[in-house]
């Protein structure tokens, strides 16, 4: 007997694809622009400009790669996360190992972040580099083992779905905008104000939108791994139901994938937030709970 894929959500998949299209178009456009500049400078025999464009074509991706690698550890440091030694917090580490076995992932490194906010996060472009961190406040809250397992499973679902990689890819158009704005060369700022600002804002919104979608997907993944959506529901209620004192997240929202997002200020509006509102997440999880274990 086959089981129905859990929480198959065609609408969500379509919306994710639609949100990805403009991002892909940006990459295509950037590539075409670069090729056009290289060919143009070659045709004009403008060797200086050609060299500049060629350097950018090679150096740009290298810089991006470096940025990605650095930001993994920067995100952990920003969260004041300390990687655990093998015999530190043995119960937590054993729990993470069990959950990753069920998800068929190699056990990630585990870190503990000092924070007043109960939260959990993961960083890493792939499953080998992944680090899962929980905050000290999360361990202090009286989550049951099953609830903690659900939180860890949510983070591991991010790892399994390569959300670190996907969100980095998605954040590049917005990142390019902020690089222009902060460039030492005044021309970057002018270019931004004249042409790029609409692209920047659209890509920012797309980034948040996709981030919200990925959160739903990670919730579904957690339900799959633990077989118990209701445990994630109660864990979310315990940690996201109350406003947190202090915040974990700095400007590196994309690299660190937290289980609950900041809901203060203008992020209270769903459109501006990288996490869906709690009640919508609970609603989806309740749907999963009804679907779980049904035959295809």
């Amino acid at each position, binding site marked *: 007997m086959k089981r129905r*894929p*859990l929480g198959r959500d065609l609408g969500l998949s379509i919306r*994710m694809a639609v949100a990805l299209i403009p991002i892909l178009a940006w990459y295509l456009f950037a590539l075409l622009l670069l090729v056009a500049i290289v060919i143009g400078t070659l045709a004009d025999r403008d060797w200086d400009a050609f060299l500049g464009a060629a350097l950018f074509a090679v150096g740009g991706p290298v810089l991006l790669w470096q940025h990605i690698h650095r930001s993994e550890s920067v995100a952990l440091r920003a969260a004041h996360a300390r990687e655990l030694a093998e015999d530190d917090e043995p119960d937590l580490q*054993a729990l993470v190992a069990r959950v990753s*076995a069920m998800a068929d992932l190699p056990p990630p490194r585990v870190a503990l972040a000092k924070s007043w906010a109960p939260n959990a996060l993961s960083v890493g472009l792939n499953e080998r580099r992944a680090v899962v961190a929980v905050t000290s406040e999360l361990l202090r809250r009286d989550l049951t083992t099953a609830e903690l397992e659900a939180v860890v499973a949510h983070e591991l679902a991010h790892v399994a779905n390569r959300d670190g990689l996907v969100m980095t890819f998605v954040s590049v158009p917005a990142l390019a905008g902020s690089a222009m704005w902060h460039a030492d060369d005044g021309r970057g700022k002018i270019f931004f104000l004249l042409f790029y600002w609409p692209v920047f804002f659209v890509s920012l919104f797309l980034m948040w939108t996709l981030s919200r979608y990925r959160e739903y997907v990670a919730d579904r993944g957690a339900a799959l791994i633990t077989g*118990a959506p209701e445990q994630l529901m109660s864990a979310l209620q315990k940690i996201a139901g109350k406003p947190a004192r202090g915040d974990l997240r700095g400007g590196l929202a994309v690299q660190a994938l937290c289980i609950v997002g900041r809901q203060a200020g203008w992020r209270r509006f769903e459109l501006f937030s990288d996490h869906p509102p709690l009640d919508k997440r609970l609603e989806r999880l309740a749907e999963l709970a009804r679907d779980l274990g049904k035959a295809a």
Partner: protein
Amino acid sequence: MGLRDVLFGRKRLKEAKRDALFALPSAAVSMEVELGLRPAGVGAVVFKPLSAGEFVRAENEMQELLDVAARESSSRIERRSDEYGYEWLIIRDEQFEDLVTTVHLVAGELAERGFGPQLLAAVTRFDGGKHPVYFVYGYKRGAFWPFVPTGERERDNAEELELKAKLEKELPIEADISMWFALYGLPI
């Protein structure tokens, strides 16, 4: 892991690979002859129960089926749950081949009802060394790995690697050592 999984997220757990388990009885013979390790007459199937109602019903049915299986093969079966919320179906049988067959039967019954992805591992115990040696069969991987716990949270990696070296010709051993997860405090 396909592109679709990356784009839209995984929608299922990996289905269990159950068949490679049958490499165990013949490997057990050489374990006894060459390494002095005897089967301890006990094994277990470890799975993660679903909280959903239908799963609970299927489990109840399975209990009946287990009773029948136990009567037919001379195995004795008991159930235990651990602190992580996993269920252990512990099977005792002095005949190693029958033990493996019953383990396979039990896992097959779960998979038959569509709960194959909930299967985590099958474990068998061997005695005769300094510490008990467990062979873990990971249903997600379709391969075995040795597990030699020496304390509450310690395992003898050197011994495990030696076992791998000696047995990998006869037993499909998981090549990726980072996937050799431990089962500390296991009830067998």
